[in-house]
């Protein structure tokens, strides 16, 4: 069964080709969607990739929330049409748009951080993690951002929405949170560049655990 994924491209986005490559390698069929797209999104998976939409001016993701396609994503989510993931800037867009709770603030160090971190998967009961075929709970992924510090009001997030936690907090994120889902568990956002774990040449396994889980989840339906 063909699983269709869309990679959204905002002005300034620069991780779209990385997301495309990773999704393709994980057997999705992929299209790019430019940000002025205001029709309904007929895809099984929507990916908001990393980068710096609108130059990250004002705040990362702050302007992308006004793009037509973001409204389309909102509808897509409320209709429960499929799954949505936001990576890095994509996560920032989702929080700015209120599709995911919380916000991403300036790193504690006041500077950009690009490095590998270890994260623990804390909830295996989401579409993004429930088919991970590994006994491992700890994974290595890269981060690359200046605004990666996750902040949220305690009351806006439930424990089971927290999917990934840093083993060692790199940026001051609340409760070591590295990735979350919404209450309906059809939207996932993370500051980890999971799409960069796309090939053994980059020091990862043949398959990406998260994309693999998404694909399994979607093909089961």
């Amino acid at each position: 069964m063909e699983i269709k994924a869309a990679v959204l491209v905002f002005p300034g986005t620069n991780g779209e080709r990385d997301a495309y490559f990773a999704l393709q390698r994980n057997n999705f069929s992929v299209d790019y969607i430019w940000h002025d797209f205001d029709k309904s999104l007929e895809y099984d998976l929507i990916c908001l990739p990393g980068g710096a939409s609108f130059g990250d001016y004002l705040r990362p993701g702050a302007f992308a929330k006004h793009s037509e396609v973001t409204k389309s994503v909102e509808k897509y989510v409320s209709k429960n049409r499929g799954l949505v993931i936001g990576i890095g800037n994509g996560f920032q867009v989702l929080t700015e748009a209120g599709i995911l709770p919380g916000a991403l603030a300036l790193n504690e160090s006041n500077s950009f951080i690009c490095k590998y971190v270890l994260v623990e998967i804390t909830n295996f009961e989401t579409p993004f993690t429930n088919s991970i075929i590994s006994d491992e709970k700890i994974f290595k992924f890269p981060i690359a951002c200046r605004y990666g510090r996750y902040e949220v009001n305690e009351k806006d997030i439930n424990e089971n929405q927290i999917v990934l936690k840093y083993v060692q907090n790199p940026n001051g994120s609340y409760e070591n949170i590295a990735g979350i889902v919404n209450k309906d568990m059809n939207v996932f956002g993370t500051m980890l560049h999971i799409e960069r774990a796309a090939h053994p040449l980059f020091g990862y396994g043949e398959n990406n655990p998260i994309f693999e889980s998404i694909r399994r989840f979607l093909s089961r339906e």
Partner: protein
Amino acid sequence: MNNSMNILQLALNLGLSNLEYNLIVERLGREPNEFEIYLFSAQWSEHCGYKHSKYYLKKLNTSFESENAGYVEIGDKVVVFKVESHNHPSAVEPYQGAATGIGGIVRDILAMGARPLALLNSLKFGELTKPKVNKIFKGVVSGISGYGNTIGIPTIAGEISFHDTYNNNPLTNVMCIGVADKNKLMSSRADGPDKLMVYVGSKTGPDGVHGASFASKEFGKEESIERPSIQVGDPFAEKNLIEASLEIMQIKAVKACQDMGAAGILSSTSEMAYKGNLGCELYLDKIPIRQEDIKPWEIMLSESQERMLFLIEKGSEEQIKKICDKYTIEFSVIGKTIKTPSYRVLEKEEGKVLADLPIEILVNAPEYYRNNTVPSSYYINRGRKIPEVEGSIDSVLKKLLGHPTLGSKRWVYEQYDYQVGTNTLIVPGDADSSAMWLKGTQKAIAVTIDSNELYTYLDPYEGTKNVVYEAARNLISIGAKPLAITDNLNFGNPENNEVSWQFERTIEGLISASVELCTPVVSGNVSFYNSYNDVSIYPTPVIGMVGEIEDVDKLLNMKFKSVDDEIYLIGKQQINVEKIGGSLFLYIIKDFIGGEMDTVNPLREIQLNKFILELIDNRVVKSVHDVSKGGILFAVVESCICSDFGFEGYIGSNVEELFGENQGMFIVSVSPTDSSKLEELAKSKNIEFRKLGKVVRKEKGINIGIENFDFNVLSNIYFNCIPKILEDHLC
């Protein structure tokens, strides 16, 4: 009479000499008007006109004036690359200076029709403990991070060194690499008359007016001179410009492309037309401007960032405008090429003519050549006796690891996104060079950037050769075959005999090394007037080199891989302690520069390089690291630290043998089962080798027989080196 006095005075104020002014009058056969003098002052500045370097650069075996960047072919791809400096702007405003430096070199690559895929940089700063230097350092690094990361081009490698010669003249050299399909390269040459010159990108403001002539002056004097209005980078506009340009260049009606760099509209339009043996006509009212009160000459000279010039066939305007609208950037037809070889600037079409100049006079700045004599400092330096280094090996090693030139640059490269684009196969800190995968193939592009101001100061000719060979060794170390060179020649005041001599000898060294290694110089840049109060920096040629990796699965880094692997020194075996002049440890420990420097033996080197590549190709070795700054012990320690292993063996018995620098050496590690194979191969190829020791667990430390170092102690000094200095000298 009065008027022509004023024009001459203006010319002098703008940095032209009396002689040059007379030359202009003579060539034109008339007095230039005020507007035209502005044009000449920029186009004939050192930065645009290459007045003091043209004569020498012509000797390089390359057609250097033709295009925005050079290239090599790998498979059915073309790899385009160039290095460029932004030294003066970085001294005045480090963040924006570095940021706009990135923007500029990226547009050079883009102008060739290639997608920019990776960045490297070579940075030079004074003593980091000085508040001023400290600020410049932090500013430059965050400028590169802020701009490079935002446009989504990874910064994958680089080099940084700290020396007091750069206290007032930091160097920011940035290199960019792009890839295009073989038949898709774009030219900057106008291919016929009556084609439209199209302006694409951000609006024009008064930014960097005088930038070109500013880069052609030295600091110190005339401190009060009006600062050029600083160029501010807009990475979002750049990203839009990149995507728009790549789309525009797919259109057949697009004939040529040129970035607007130094002397912006003026030099891009004039050079594009001139290269096609044509003239051009520009209409000033068509140029998108940011503020109403900008003067005509400011528009021409402005170095506002994020702008490109295209030459297109009539009729394709709408198609191109649509792309610009999509990316929210300006589009405007600003003029056209004409048959008459004149450079004409009009207020508006059919309007007042502001300038009408024979284009070849405008574009061809005079060429200066000096009969250089060898400065006495050269002999004096060589004659200086290399001092005794007292103190234990332990204390010397710790000092080196804690010196920012040798300590880890992690604090820097963690601020660069080195992975966006997912082509980066070697991340910073893991090897002597980096590699970019050509997705869809087994091949990769290897890249490195290198310099050594101590070597090139002691002996510009041999020093430059050493640097080029070291760049080659860096590529060899990861398994790449060196293909071509780009160079950035950072020098002091070229009107000074010593500097002029250094420049000439550097070019000669560059030519000889590039010929020997079969790596032509395909692009480059010259930066003069890096001086302060009449003191010039050490001559600093920076060499960028690109190589090819046949099979990505064979890529190697410098990390040791497993306990009990054996470690060999391949190549030259005994440090000639008579020839360790220019070694970094002498500068760090004794503040000494002088003495006899080791030089490369081309035949031996080339043999050695071939041998190392063979070892890698046959998967005999598991890691390779070239021996360079800091000598043999430092190379071994670095491999240990970055791989979390210890060492046990013997390297040498005194400070000179352990830290002295000679040419032509590699450290390799090999599994015990393969060591005999390695030895046999080396013998059959007549390559010298010596077993230094073996890899052990890090808990056992780094044991060199005469001394045993605690792994964690060394590792901490190495990784905390820069953060510690910044912390201790917070400002």
